[in-house]
């Protein structure tokens, strides 16, 4: 058995493949956070008054919480205190001029994308995928805009949305995640630099998958993304988010907020593959990923579906949730979270059933290797008026080796007796007998492990768009190389 453990350890010991730094002239604010910084951010971005006011009230709320030391402590993760005054809250590549096409994009930046395996030149040809590339905090290139515009879909950076569609931003910003929601959401609301904005008008099925690649580049820059997606009545949109960051010694804070709003009969599908730098084998460095993601299934028959594959970050604190407000609305959460070496993840979802006959499905697959600690934390809440609500939850943990941990905290709160709730959970260890069986058929040990893991995650992978599913499988194998020994 000990040889299996050693094998498992070998397999996970693969260096982070995307560790490189692009040298681009930056425009950045000195470290520190106060009202002047907030004003400076708003000024740099040329924002209208309503945005500045929103940022300021968010900042004041956050500052009051910070004073009370109200940073959330309940998550099952451990980390050194964050010095919020040591972080620079704005960093943008210096723009030389307005960019009209990809050719005008800084070649070094394009090169970075190439290393990540997403050459924009090719993306352009890949019909069906539009990429709004966020480089540090400012969008540098957006493709497929015209085709989307034809369909009436707005897909742009948050900054552009503030300039060009202030009425939509004003109406929906903070309507799902208010600025007082939690400590990190308040911080994001105060300082968020950029992000993506999507609006799909009534009855429109978005003609392509929308995709954004985020990348944290500048050292010591917390990145505060904000994404807002609105699907109007009868609309459909599928949004893909993928992330990679270069190697850094110091921990970097990432506190994003994502808000989704689905009106009557609308569907929003949001898929994430996250492989930010997880820290080294000793647990040094890595991203702190403290994210608030929430969707509001506002209209009747609306649907919000979250799929996430989380393999990166030193610490993940993330609960993509659904507020099922409309009658017959549907919420889904499919998750694979992998922790290796000294990674810690506390992730799960909240399904809040408000409307009648609302339905939610939760499928969570946690994989722990090395010294990784993986926590599922989920809440299913059936409110009084949610007649006929249903929930199905499946929560499985897979352990690789004997130094890691899997933890499960399911909360269920039912206030309507007609609700039907199902909860299944399992914990298993990857078996030496399974690995040997596959090896005996000619399959190498590494492939065997990757096959077993992929089988374990299948229920989640099948929810991902094809290209993403392939990438996710590769990522899992890379993240686990050296962990099976």
């Amino acid at each position, binding site marked *: 058995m000990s040889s299996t453990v050693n094998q498992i350890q070998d397999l996970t010991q693969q260096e982070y493949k995307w560790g490189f730094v692009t040298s681009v002239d930056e425009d950045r604010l000195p470290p520190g956070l106060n009202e002047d910084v907030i004003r400076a951010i708003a000024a740099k971005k040329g924002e209208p008054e309503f945005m500045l006011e929103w940022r300021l009230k968010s900042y004041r709320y956050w500052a009051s919480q910070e004073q009370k030391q109200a940073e959330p402590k309940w998550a099952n993760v451990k980390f050194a205190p964050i010095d919020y005054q040591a972080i620079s809250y704005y960093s943008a590549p210096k723009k030389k001029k307005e960019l009209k096409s990809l050719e005008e994009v800084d070649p070094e930046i394009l090169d970075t994308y190439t290393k990540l395996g997403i050459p924009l030149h090719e993306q352009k040809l890949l019909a069906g995928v539009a990429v709004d590339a966020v480089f540090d905090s400012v969008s540098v290139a957006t493709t497929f805009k015209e085709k989307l515009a034809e369909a009436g879909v707005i897909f742009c950076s948050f900054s552009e949305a503030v300039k060009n569609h202030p009425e939509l931003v004003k109406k929906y910003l903070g309507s799902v995640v208010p600025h007082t929601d939690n400590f990190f959401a308040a911080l994001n609301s105060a300082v968020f630099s950029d992000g993506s904005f999507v609006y799909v008008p009534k009855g429109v099925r978005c003609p392509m998958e929308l995709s954004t690649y985020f990348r944290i580049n500048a050292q010591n820059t917390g990145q505060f993304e904000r994404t807002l997606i609105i699907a109007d009545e009868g609309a459909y949109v599928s949004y893909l988010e993928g992330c990679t960051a270069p190697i850094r010694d110091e921990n970097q804070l990432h506190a994003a907020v994502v808000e989704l709003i689905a009106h009557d009969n609308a569907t929003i599908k949001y898929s994430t593959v996250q492989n930010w730098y997880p820290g080294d084998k000793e647990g040094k460095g890595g991203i702190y990923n403290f994210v608030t993601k929430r969707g509001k299934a506002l209209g009747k028959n609306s649907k919000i579906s979250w799929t996430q594959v989380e393999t990166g970050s030193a610490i993940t604190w993330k609960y993509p949730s659904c507020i099922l407000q409309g009658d017959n609305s549907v919420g889904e959460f499919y998750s694979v979270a992998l922790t290796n070496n000294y990674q810690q993840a506390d992730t799960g979802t909240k399904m809040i059933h408000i409307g009648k006959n609302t339905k939610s499905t939760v499928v969570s697959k946690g994989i722990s290797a090395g010294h990784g600690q993986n926590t599922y934390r989920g809440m299913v809440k059936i409110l009084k008026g949610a007649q006929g609500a249903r929930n199905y939850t499946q929560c499985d943990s897979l352990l690789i080796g004997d130094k890691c941990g899997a933890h499960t905290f399911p909360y269920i709160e039912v206030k309507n007796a007609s609700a039907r709730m199902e909860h299944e959970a399992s914990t298993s260890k990857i078996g030496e007998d399974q690995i040997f069986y596959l090896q005996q058929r*000619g399959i190498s040990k590494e492939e065997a492990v990757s096959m077993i893991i992929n089988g374990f995650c299948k229920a989640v992978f099948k929810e991902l768009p094809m290209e993403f599913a392939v990438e996710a499988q590769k990522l899992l194998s890379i993240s686990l190389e050296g962990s099976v020994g």
Partner: protein
Amino acid sequence: MSLLEIKNLHASVNGNEILKGIDLTVNPGEVHSIMGPNGSGKSTLAQVLARRESYQVTGGSVSFAGKDLLERKPEDAACEGLFMAFQYPVEIPGISNAYFLRAALNALRKYRGEDEMDAMDFLPLLREKMRMLEMDERFLNRPVNEGFSGGEKKRNEIVQMAVLEPRLAVLDETDSGLDIDALKIVAKGVNAMRSKDRAMVLVTHYQRLLDYIVPDFVHVLVNGRIVKSGGPELALELEQKGYSWTERELAGARR
């Protein structure tokens, strides 16, 4: 040249010596049966040949197709053409039978420097082998062995053998847990695989299997050693007299 040559093989599990000097030569085209009472080391021998790491070889040598088998990793032994039908086939949730078996076949083909087979070419091949073992097509897309009955698992092992076409097949207690109908189907599949280039080693506790798959040689394994070898008639003799007969004979020979 012999396909498998085992010389004075000693092996231990968790520090307990199980195999205490096995000698066995298997030539292409031959079917050998290893029989013996529980705990005699039959399955250990199978596992050692398949290169399971938790079984430590403490002495002796094994050559397979002219190469040192004991130097090989399990997957390389498999790629060289050694197949073991498991006594307890393992479940792999979420991976379909068809996907798994194509991955296995392609691993072998790659090792031999052949092109990988795509799904279009592979599926008809797999269907044909499944028909031979009278397995329903729905098993194509079912996860490997998950929810299979004992008999279905054993038949699935033989389907795999038929697809992978090994040079040496080691069948570890393939008859255990099979009813008579399933046993006949399995035997039919195994017999169809017999050829002048392929050798088989049947590890079994009971003579019953040998009514349907008639071996060329029978070896009796007792307490980690082969104590008696002979033709198929030896199996019948064992059936009548029981293993204690060989043990007494062995004791007599020692005196």
